[in-house]
């Protein structure tokens, strides 16, 4: 072998990895989702309200093709130039897994609002909010979850929200709903106590 620089390469690899992780997390979809590292084991579990759910890990990877000539010419920059593409592909796979998991879970729990092909109207929106768990801050404001909307629906949906906000009847119904949700949250939080 030729003389090599393994310690320096190790550092480049660590920096690349760190930067790639930052890019894959740098997305509104994932920003609100907490990530944690597991150092050992080959599966994980969590406890919903009833039972225990075990699951295995899924590998997300992306292929990086670089010509030797590019490496010789540009050095580590050749890898960093392609990192955004890698990050985008990994994010896509993560998102696919996220939505698949959400689909599976909501099918099981029945937490689905099916508009049955009809346009998305206020009643469907109301039904959706009614089904989800909402937390509130100390000032009583709701911590609204992230809504993921297909890009083609984005503008239309924002228009509808604006219209519904101007409708006094819709506003009253939503206010009453949030009040019920706040009470539910209060009850939940009050139950977090140590008893005899």
């Amino acid at each position, binding site marked *: 072998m030729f003389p090599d620089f393994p310690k320096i390469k190790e550092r*480049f690899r660590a920096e690349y990895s760190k930067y790639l992780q930052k890019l894959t997390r740098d997305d509104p979809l994932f920003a609100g989702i907490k990530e944690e590292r597991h150092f050992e084991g080959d599966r994980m579990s969590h406890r919903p309200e009833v039972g225990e759910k075990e699951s295995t890990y899924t590998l997300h990877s992306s292929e990086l093709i670089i010509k030797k000539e590019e*490496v*010789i010419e540009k*050095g*580590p920059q050749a890898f960093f130039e392609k990192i955004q593409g890698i990050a985008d592909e990994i994010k896509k796979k993560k998102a696919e897994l996220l939505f698949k998991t959400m689909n599976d879970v909501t099918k099981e729990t029945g937490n689905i609002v099916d508009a049955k092909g009809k346009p998305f109207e206020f009643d469907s929106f109301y039904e959706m909010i009614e089904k989800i768990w909402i937390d509130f801050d100390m000032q009583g404001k709701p911590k609204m979850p992230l809504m993921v909307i297909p890009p083609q629906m984005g503008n239309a949906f924002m228009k509808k929200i604006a219209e519904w906000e101007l409708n006094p009847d819709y506003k009253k119904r939503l206010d009453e709903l949030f009040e019920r949700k706040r009470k539910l949250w209060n009850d939940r939080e009050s139950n977090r106590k140590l008893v005899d």
Partner: protein
Amino acid sequence: MIERVIENWLTNTNERNYQIAFCHMLMQKGYKVIYVSTHRPMEQGKDIIAIDLSGECVAYQLKTGDIKLPTWRAIKGEVMELIELPIVHPSCNKMKTHKSYLVFNGQMTDEVRHQIDQINEHNSRLGKDYSYLDIIDKNVLIVEFIEAQGKFMPKELEDFNLFLELFLANGTDFLDKKKLFHFLNSTFFSNSSNLSEAKNNIYCSVIFTSYMLNAFQIQNNYYALFEGWSVLVACIIRFSSKQGLKHKDIKNNIELIYDEIGKNMDLLKNETLDKKTFLEGDLMGDGGDIYKARATIVLGTLASYEIFSSLRNHEHKFNDELLNLLIENFKNLKLWGESAFPFFFFIIKYLELNNESEIAKSLLRSVTETVITMNSFESKVGLASPYYSVNELFEAVFFDIEKVNFNEFTGSSYTLECLIHMLARRNDRVILESYWRIISNIQFKETRLDNVEDIFTWRVENGLNYAQFPKATQSWKELVNDSNDTEDTPSLFHEQLPFLCIFIIVCPHRISSKIIKLIDYPK
């Protein structure tokens, strides 16, 4: 613990790599090693020929691993040559039957042992004048090597730790020369009371160095092996100088180590000529400056070895393929700091010796210009001194810029005087004329050691860090005279001139205008 280390080394090594340790083990027992097969194919089945304590000639054939029936069948022809053909050497009487040993770092199956027994018995029964074949297997080798290392088991925790760190090093990385120098000097080369003890120290140092380079042998890291063996030669030269040993007392040891260095250089050369690029290992982090540094190291080292070989053997023929590769990779050379200077020096020399003077001149001028501009008084970022290795500098530049203060190097240089003298010897005053105003503000630096033999060690306590400005008004004639004046060069440098060619590659901080003068135009 040491026994485990020796066993581990023996298990993982091959005959090419344990040969030198085996030779030194024989020498330590009092044998005289008169022939070792190195670059040439094995002659008449004999890898090593020695004269034992009773004056008998002994021939050894070395093999790797276990000897099972299929292996035996494959090597039987060579083994028969070992025992049937007499030793052809002036020191051996062809009329007298020699002793023969098949040496291997594994185990032998009973079937093979039985066959050897039958061969010996058959030859004896028929009255054939063939050598009796004996075997030395791994178990015997372990015992022999443990006995050979004798009292040199590192006793102090610090030395033992150092030994293990070297033994367990990452074989794909650069050799930690500082640690190797320290271990060898403190364990083997501190002091000895008499010639016999001094020689014993040297034999054992060679055996131990084989162990410590194990990780690099496994990875075929030829450059690290070249460095490791060169460090040992340096330690032996320094030690023999301090102990008052004569050249003849260490000649055999040094020659065997030179053979080992040559073997690794040949392997590096073949690998360089076979591979199309200088990429190595994980591509992540490779390329760019790393690639250029590696190309510079490999090509510069091969050039230095060619020049070393030519100084030892005037009939040495330079390699045309290497020359073509040098010219093709001109744009891939990198002056990362002043520790790169020796590589450039030998590349320039090699080009000149192969009649590529114009390319050599262009490279010499380019290097000189770079040193002048980067290390000028007004510069903000200087070329690091030769005390900084390429690894340290890359780590600083890529990740921790605070680690090295590049501003410290401006206004001085360890290599500029060497470069100026090189240009003067070539009667090339163009660059010097245009840059003299800047040059006259750059101090020439040098480490002057109190004891001349201390040049052959990593660091010393006793020495002078000398710095001097060149003359503001410099006579060209005087400069040319100075550049050719080798009168006050220590005799040790003259004696060790060929070795200096490879030593300054390994220890670039030891370059000085005196040494470069000697190598540039040896008289």
